[in-house]
């Protein structure tokens, strides 16, 4: 580390000198302009240096930390987050938190570049698949066991607790909120196509056979350009395609111990073949989850969305010109296993105890402070990970969606090699979409993913 700093100093000195030197001619005016510029350059270089300085604190003695959030409900909306931060700053005026907003399409790349660039954020808000299985497994995160007090362990649901730690029991995430990812249908379109008979509107479930018939009916009615899209441009929203395929015939994605990818089972093969054969369902390599939601919400393109949860409906409320019906994924058994989302905070180990401490204070405030936690959870528009009373009293939409919580299945996204596995997943879907044999493609997926898991 030390020689790097010396190198940095030396280089910037040389640069400053060189600029000053070339200004050192006869023309006085030019020279002035030159040295001004040198000054400016120097100052900016300095600014950069300062930002990255370890353990730096500004003149006022505040500890500055950075928080990067993915768009988890309204945690991706600056107005909401500014409000939350204001609460925190009021309670802890010795810490200053600045926020960056990430998106699911490029957020990972952005964090990975920042890590390599030596400026990883202090706090990142996401789920176990990134915090535990990816960055945690790579040894980049701080062990959060001191946040996980006995009291916390008691309060937080067991399934959530299990997801937030790795196989050795080290906690890399402190959770805030959770939800079950569902799918959704355009009720108006289904009604006109006379397809509502194939589903249980009350419970929000349907059978594989019902799903198949419904798709056929909706496709025949021709109200939308297509019925649904198995989007596979990238990883955005891939929990939807995974849940769809796993549920149709009861296939699995990993083994129960979360050590191996088992997606190449016959059930999944059958599911892929069914999806391929259905008229009206496209394997679309030009879309990601976000695009799919967009096309579902405009009402005339897609009649179903696989990338859905309560937040999608809330965020798109203004644009929705039709009745959205959230549904569990279709199953043969009638017992859907929905993918859960468990979101919370992780801390990047930036070798600076003051910042880590500050980050922990922040997390503790957001997730445990009695007056704050309800507001933090509400900002996500998901459900709390422990019993803090009914915070959505009188919210019909939340009540409607809460019926899916019991369907929440195993949180398997913590197998190591997760980042590689999800990359392989969308590539697998693309292959199947372009005519590859489902079994071969799934085998290849499992092989790639398991190689990554073994490393």
């Amino acid at each position, binding site marked *: 580390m030390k020689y790097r700093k010396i190198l940095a100093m030396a*280089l910037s000195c*040389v*640069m400053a000198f*060189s*600029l000053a*030197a*070339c200004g050192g001619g006869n023309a006085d005016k030019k020279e002035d302009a030159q040295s001004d510029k040198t000054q400016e350059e120097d100052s900016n270089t300095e600014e950069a240096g300062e930002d990255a300085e370890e353990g730096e604190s500004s003149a006022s003695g505040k500890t500055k930390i950075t928080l990067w959030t993915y768009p988890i409900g309204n945690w991706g909306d600056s107005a909401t987050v500014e409000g939350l931060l204001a609460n925190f700053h009021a309670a802890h005026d010795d810490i200053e938190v600045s926020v960056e907003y990430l998106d699911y399409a490029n957020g*990972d*790349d952005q964090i*990975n*570049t920042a*890590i*390599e660039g030596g400026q990883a954020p202090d706090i990142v808000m996401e789920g176990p698949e990134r915090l535990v299985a990816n960055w945690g497994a*790579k*040894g*980049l995160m701080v062990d959060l066991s001191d946040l996980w007090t006995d009291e916390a362990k008691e309060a937080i649901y067991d399934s959530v607790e299990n997801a937030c730690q790795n196989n050795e029991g080290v906690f890399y995430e402190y959770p805030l909120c959770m939800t079950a990812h569902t799918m959704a249908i355009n009720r108006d379109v289904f009604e006109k196509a006379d397809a509502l008979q194939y589903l249980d509107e009350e419970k929000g479930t349907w059978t594989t056979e019902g799903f198949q018939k419904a798709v056929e009916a909706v496709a025949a009615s021709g109200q939308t*350009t*297509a019925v649904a899209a198995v989007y*596979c*441009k*990238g990883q955005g929203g891939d929990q939807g395609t995974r849940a769809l395929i796993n549920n149709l015939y009861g296939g699995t994605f990993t083994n129960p111990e979360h050590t191996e990818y088992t997606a190449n089972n016959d059930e999944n093969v059958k599911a892929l073949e069914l999806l391929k054969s259905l008229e009206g369902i*496209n394997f*679309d*390599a*030009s*879309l990601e989850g976000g695009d799919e939601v967009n*096309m579902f919400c*405009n009402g*005339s*393109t*897609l009649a179903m969305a696989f990338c859905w949860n309560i937040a999608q409906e809330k965020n798109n409320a203004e644009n929705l010109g039709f009745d959205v019906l959230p549904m569990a994924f279709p199953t043969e058994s009638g017992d859907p296993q929905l993918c859960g989302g468990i979101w919370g905070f992780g801390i990047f180990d930036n070798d600076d105890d003051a910042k880590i401490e500050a980050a922990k204070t922040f997390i503790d405030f957001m997730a445990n402070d009695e007056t704050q936690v309800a507001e933090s959870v509400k900002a996500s528009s998901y459900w709390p990970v422990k019993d803090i009373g009914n915070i959505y009293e009188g919210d019909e939409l939340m009540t409607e969606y809460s019926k899916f919580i019991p369907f929440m299945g195993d949180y398997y996204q913590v197998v190591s090699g997760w*980042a*590689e596995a999800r*990359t392989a997943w*969308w*590539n697998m879907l*693309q*292959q199947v*979409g*372009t005519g590859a044999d489902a079994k071969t493609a799934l085998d290849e997926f499992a092989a790639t993913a398991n190689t990554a898991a073994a490393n």
Partner: protein
Amino acid sequence: MKKKNPMSRALVRRETIAGYAFMVPSLIFFLGFVIYPMVQCVITSFFDSTMNRDDIFIGFANYAELFQDSVFLGALKNTIIIVVVSVPLTCIFSLWVSSVIYDLKGPLCSAFRCIFYLPVVTGSVAVTVVWKWMFNNYYGIFNYIGTNTGMIKQNINWLGDEKFALGCIILILLTTSVGQPIVLYVSALNNVDQSLVEAAQVDGATKMQCFWKIKWPQIMPTTLYILVITTINSFQCFALIQLLTSGGPNHSTDTIMYYIYYNAFKLYRYGYGNAMGVILAIIIAILSAVQFKMAKTD
């Protein structure tokens, strides 16, 4: 410069000191931000280098793996297709446009020149936003026009179909790269020696003969320059792919540029990515050497 008498030692020294004094500012940037990373790139390509772990020396293993990696070979193929298709097309299209517009009266020529240059100044990111919409499977304009006029029977998923995706990328690349060649050709054609052309016309040469026998040789240097810059440009095609297809479907639009990025920031394989960079650099170096040779002999 005095070239007659051999330079004295003192003069050589003076010249050297002065020469380097003038070179220093540029050399710092050149060595610091081109040569040094290049050397690092070559060195790291011999290591298994990933996040948060010390690099492990593995010799040529990265290179050996590269040539068995079907995705890399596919990316190499795509890169070559992009270059081989888009470079001649760019040259021909811009030559055709310029040969028609260069002697147009009034502001028409410069208006055309301007319009064809617009996508270059607008920048690929802003332009891509619209292209993405135009190519959309469900409500894109190409499908809208195509199906309404009966040219295509059903919607085509332009960017999501292996058969079309690379073609679409090349098309967009073309629109963002013909601007400069047209500007160059127009001015080159305007500089052609008119007396030769007139003399040939007096001798009864047709327009075609005039063009190929007299104008073409005179604009040859411009053509070569255009070849070089469009080749470099096509190799660098990245933004379009990152924003439109992410290399898919089925790696059919992966280019080496994108695959390096993919390996580095999705799979954390820095050494492997660097090995690809080295290969790409070698390919480009050979190509440029060939082009320079061609320029010299002509």
